[in-house]
């Protein structure tokens, strides 16, 4: 089946004063129809930037896509579209929800205004029809008494409700792809469970693909089919969710799984050190400074992103030993 979204060799740079620094590099991934695809990584790993690049919402300047292609529905390279064409897709065929439901809605407009706005951009419905569509979608995301909610302002709603409204706005135009950037991070666990549940339900009803961006491996395990692990702006490992959790290849993934507190073992594990800053990116493998299995080669040359098992890519010299010896 043809993928709904295909990212090829995406690279994002940041222009600081005189120099140009790389923040995201070599991103390759495919999201299939009805698939929930996860990107997991710590803060600063570049996962949010990647999602914003898909939407064409990178803050430019200073950020810019310097290389790569993003194909949507096979043939449309989002990076080559005019801003006008891109606007037609945004909020319509691709929509997005964000981490902070507190601040992601304009505080000065009613829920109705903010829902209708989306429809105004993308449909030619009459006001009445629009309203009907809004009511329908609000019911769909599980909010009782939609008529009343629509008259309220964001601050009158709880965090969970707001995130539901965000989802409603995103689903209004029946998108092909929903990008969810840390959709539950700011929510309590019981509410998180509600929202994740809702998203899966919507995926089934609307046949929408979801790109789930999170730092929480638990969320990934709960919802995703495929996962990409990002570290310092690169995808270090990419595979289906079961392989990732049961047969992780990359030392970073392993560390991450081990440091999931509480659940697995009693001994606390943590990856030593911290993510390198953009200015001090290592020349070779970006994880080399924290890797327990680092080799000489790792410091000097960046490994390739190779298929190390079926449908399992990993970017690590450990699996390219022969090659390493040659270099």
């Amino acid at each position: 089946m043809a993928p709904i979204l295909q990212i090829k060799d995406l690279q994002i740079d940041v222009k600081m004063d005189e120099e140009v620094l790389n923040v995201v590099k070599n991103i390759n991934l495919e999201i299939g129809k009805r698939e929930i695809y996860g990107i997991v990584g710590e803060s600063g790993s570049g996962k949010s930037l990647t999602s914003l690049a898909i939407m064409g919402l990178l803050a430019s300047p200073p950020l810019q896509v310097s290389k790569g292609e993003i194909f949507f529905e096979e043939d449309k390279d989002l990076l080559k579209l005019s801003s006008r064409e891109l606007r037609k897709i945004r909020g319509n065929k691709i929509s997005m929800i964000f981490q902070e439901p507190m601040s992601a809605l304009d505080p000065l407009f009613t829920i109705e205004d903010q829902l209708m706005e989306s429809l105004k951009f993308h449909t030619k419905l009459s006001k009445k029809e629009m309203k009907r569509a809004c009511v329908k979608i609000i019911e769909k995301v599980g909010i009782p008494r939609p008529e009343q909610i629509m008259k309220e302002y964001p601050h009158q709603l709880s965090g969970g409700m707001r995130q539901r409204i965000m989802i409603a706005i995103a689903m209004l135009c029946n998108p092909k792809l929903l990008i969810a950037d840390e959709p539950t991070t700011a929510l309590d666990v019981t509410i998180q469970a509600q929202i994740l549940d809702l998203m899966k339900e919507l995926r089934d009803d609307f046949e929408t693909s979801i790109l789930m961006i999170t730092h929480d491996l638990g969320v990934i395990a709960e919802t995703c089919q495929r996962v990409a692990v990002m570290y310092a702006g690169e995808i270090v490992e990419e595979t289906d969710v079961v392989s990732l959790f049961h047969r992780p290849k990359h030392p970073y993934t392993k560390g991450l799984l081990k440091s999931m507190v509480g659940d697995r073992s009693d001994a606390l594990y943590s990856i030593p050190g911290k993510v390198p800053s953009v200015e001090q990116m290592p020349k070779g493998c970006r994880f080399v400074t924290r890797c327990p299995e680092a080799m000489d080669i790792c410091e000097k040359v960046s490994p390739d992103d190779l298929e190390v098992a079926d449908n399992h890519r990993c970017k690590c010299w450990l699996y390219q030993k022969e090659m390493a010896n040659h270099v």
Partner: protein
Amino acid sequence: MFAYILRRLLMLIPVLFGISVFIFLIMKMIPGDVVSTILGTEATDEARSQLEKQFGLNLPIYQQYLQWMGGVLTGDFGVSLRTGKPILGDIISRFGLTLELTLLSAFISWIIAIPLGIVAALKRNTSTDFGVRIISLLGVSVPNFALATLLLLVLSLAFSYYPPAGYVSLFEEPMKNLQMMVLPAFVLGTAMAGAVMRMTRSSILEVLRQDFIRTIRAKGASERIVIFNHALKNAMIPILTIIGMQIGTLLGGTVIIEQIFSLPGLGQMVLTAINQRDYPVVQGAVLFIATVFVLINLFVDVLYSYLDPRITYK
């Protein structure tokens, strides 16, 4: 909301009381008095004491205050010691002018400052931004009276133009009135524009950094909608604060411009009265200005809650 407004109005009482005491005492402390300014070089002792008696200035100070305050509370601000005219009526008719001047200059400053502020914010740190900031700062940097004098000079010499003399109110002859007001309002407006521009620029920048702007863009909104429907409305609150303060300041701060453009406004009234030591006029007018100032602030606060549903006053 109603309770809030009522509470604010109640809080006005001590403030106004304080102002009344303050202005009353300060007028007593100013050297010179109304009698000597009236009689000037013709003063004789008996004329002095006669006038003092007439004006009630021979009474103990607290009695003078109570008498004045008693009148004010019953809506009687007394009469001017110089012209014998009832003060309140005069204040109100002059307030009309000052208010018009204030609003007109505020309006001029907005139509200059807000678009410039938006442009500067959108083109942050480009030469356009610097250009706009420089222009808006120029307005602030020139003392009002210098700009006003220059304007009068240039217009009269180069265009043989002078605004019609002899103030008429907006309701009598609107066109003539506007011609009189445009120049002074322009001078005041340019001075205000800088601060408004600056605030517009920074609050638009601030708003554009907010998460919900990203949401709106993600919905597929064009930049125009992002800026004008959302960013501007959100940025309006800090801008409004500045505007509210400026309007308040202008109410008593147009003295110089009123004088240069020969406009019989409230500022002139107070200035003349201070010079003549016409106590009840100064006291009445200052109390009035302060009340309006406080009410404008209240109005601005109420306006906030109208603009921003998050702000609810209880």
